[in-house]
């Protein structure tokens, strides 16, 4: 799971204090187009006709994760911080060595650029529908700032002396409909081996979005926080209904403390125990599903990205889970982007897809011979035909 917890806005509120949850959110149209330029494996990409549920498939190294990254990175003005979270997800380490020269600085960011070409600007535009809550992010080097950065660890002499004016400076510009543009120019400072990023802007703006990755996991406190907020909002029964329907041996969910840490407990039938058990102890898969459901409820009106949804989920409940996630997504006006490699998981989607084709989209990623990766957008009708007739869609 990935979201910038440290700077999450108050639940149910936009950064400017407007209510997210309520009629306004219910009416807000979803985005239906994403345009990407010079980002990761995408030289140029435009994906249209996005829907409520967007199923993302494709071989390894076809750009699925990069596409989810583009959506997530463009969902907040704190993209420079998010870049380092993405590195951790990509198993590129969760620490960086402070750069000692301009080359080192550029290497912190160059993997964001298509073919590492940081001479060209990155832009990601998420929108399409003129009434949608659109976002755009651009990333490029600026040359006119002349700002001196505190490069280098104190114990390691700098290999290059950087003078004012020769320092590279990357700049992230983020814009969301109805909000002022936020410009972030990250600087690197050393605090031991940890590196802090300072943003020029004091205000961090967000579009509600969360990313569930196969490698990440929620802390119990994060799950508890979302659970509590959804309780306050009066919607927790919708989440409980999903979990108790999918796993009938779970009779109820509640928020309790275990060794001083708040976490979600389940009333489990047949354990012979007189007290309830933390969900994490019952099953990793159930815990992940609970996290996803709470994510949908918490990030109402936003976007939930789920990488490899089948992880930890038994095949017998996949069909039902598709139905539950779709219902929750509609209920909370959330747009889902879900990737999978599993044919079993995709086939299990068919009963939910039937009759709701207009709410579904198949995004098929693949690598081209000369222009990096691309993604085809195919309709829910197409997906239904292919699944019914067992035509490979992955």
């Amino acid at each position, binding site marked *: 799971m990935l979201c910038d917890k440290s700077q999450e806005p108050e639940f149910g509120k936009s950064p400017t204090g407007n209510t997210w949850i309520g009629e306004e959110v219910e009416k807000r149209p979803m985005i239906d187009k994403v345009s990407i330029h010079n980002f990761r494996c995408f030289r140029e990409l435009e994906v249209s006709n996005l829907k409520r549920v967007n199923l993302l498939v494709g071989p390894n190294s076809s750009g699925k994760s990069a596409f989810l990254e583009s959506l997530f990175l463009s969902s907040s003005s704190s993209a420079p911080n998010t870049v380092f979270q993405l590195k951790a997800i990509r198993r590129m380490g969760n620490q960086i060595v402070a750069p000692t020269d301009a080359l080192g600085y550029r290497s912190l960011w160059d993997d964001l650029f298509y073919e590492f070409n940081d001479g060209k600007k990155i832009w990601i535009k998420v929108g399409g529908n003129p009434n949608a809550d659109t976002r755009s992010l651009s990333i490029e080097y600026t040359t006119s700032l002349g700002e001196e950065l505190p490069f280098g660890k104190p114990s390691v002499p700098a290999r290059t002396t950087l003078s004012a004016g020769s320092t590279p400076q990357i700049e992230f510009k983020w814009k969301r409909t109805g909000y002022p543009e936020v410009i972030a120019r990250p600087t690197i400072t050393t605090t031991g081996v940890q590196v802090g990023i300072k943003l020029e802007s004091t205000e961090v703006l967000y579009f509600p979005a969360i990313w569930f990755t196969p490698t990440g996991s929620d802390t119990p406190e994060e799950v508890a926080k979302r659970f509590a907020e959804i309780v306050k909002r009066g919607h927790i029964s919708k989440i409980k209904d999903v979990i108790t329907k999918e796993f009938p041996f779970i009779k109820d969910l509640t928020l309790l403390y275990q060794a001083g840490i708040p976490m979600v407990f389940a009333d489990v039938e047949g354990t012979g125990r007189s007290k309830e058990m933390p969900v994490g102890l019952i099953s990793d898969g159930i815990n992940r599903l609970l996290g996803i459901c709470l994510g949908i409820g918490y990030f109402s009106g936003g976007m939930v990205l789920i990488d490899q949804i089948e992880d930890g989920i038994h095949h017998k409940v996949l069909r039902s889970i598709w139905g539950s996630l779709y219902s929750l997504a509609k209920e909370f006006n959330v747009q889902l982007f879900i990737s999978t490699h599993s044919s079993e998981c995709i086939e299990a989607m068919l009963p939910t897809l039937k009759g709701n084709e207009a709410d579904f989209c198949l995004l098929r990623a693949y*690598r081209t*011979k000369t222009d990096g990766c691309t993604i085809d957008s195919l309709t829910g009708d197409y997906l239904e035909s292919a699944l019914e007739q067992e*035509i*490979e869609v992955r």
Partner: protein
Amino acid sequence: MKCDEKEEKREKAFEPESPYVIICEGFQDRGLICALLKHLNITNCDVTFPKKRRDGANGKDAIFQVLNAVSGQKVAGESLGGLAVIRDADDDPDVAFKETAERFPPPYTAPKKPFTIEKGKYRTGIFLIPGKSRTGTLDHLLLDAVAAKNQPVIDCINRLEACANWRVDWSSNKNAKMKMHCAVASFCKGDPGCSLGFIWSKGADNPMDISSPVFKELADFLNDFSK
């Protein structure tokens, strides 16, 4: 060309490996088409057919569903170079052609007439079995092939048909199917109940020759589609 046993039984999802895809009605049609492709040494076509009938829908809707699904497939990152439908003419070839042509999904442009290949950016074609100016089904075409190889077998089956006169109300299509099953049963010693989908691998037990002139129209269509 994808004509392996596993694919014949459709034990796995269909994924084209060749740039040209032929969609037919079923496993038995696929047997003939694959046998012809091998005979003609055509290696750039895959053949597939509906896995499932659609409840409550027109019997042909499953073909159109496959046509739609296959149209979105790619081979080595490229859209398919062509799509052809080979189906029964049934009782009205004009209706059969029209309802099929209407279902070609973009960017594939339907052919203007049956039995010919539309050669634009993408090749398309519709072949109506048993052939030009005829009504009927696969069984009619195969019976012609049996007759071409061994007319006495057909004469015997016709006598059987006369004996079984309580079944004279069978439709032409069902009558042809009955005769074809009789022909296979009388010829295929190793497996009298052999499916028409497998008959082409039965050698001397096959009552038909793949090189029979009765398959010339279909062979010409396949040659044109693949080149």
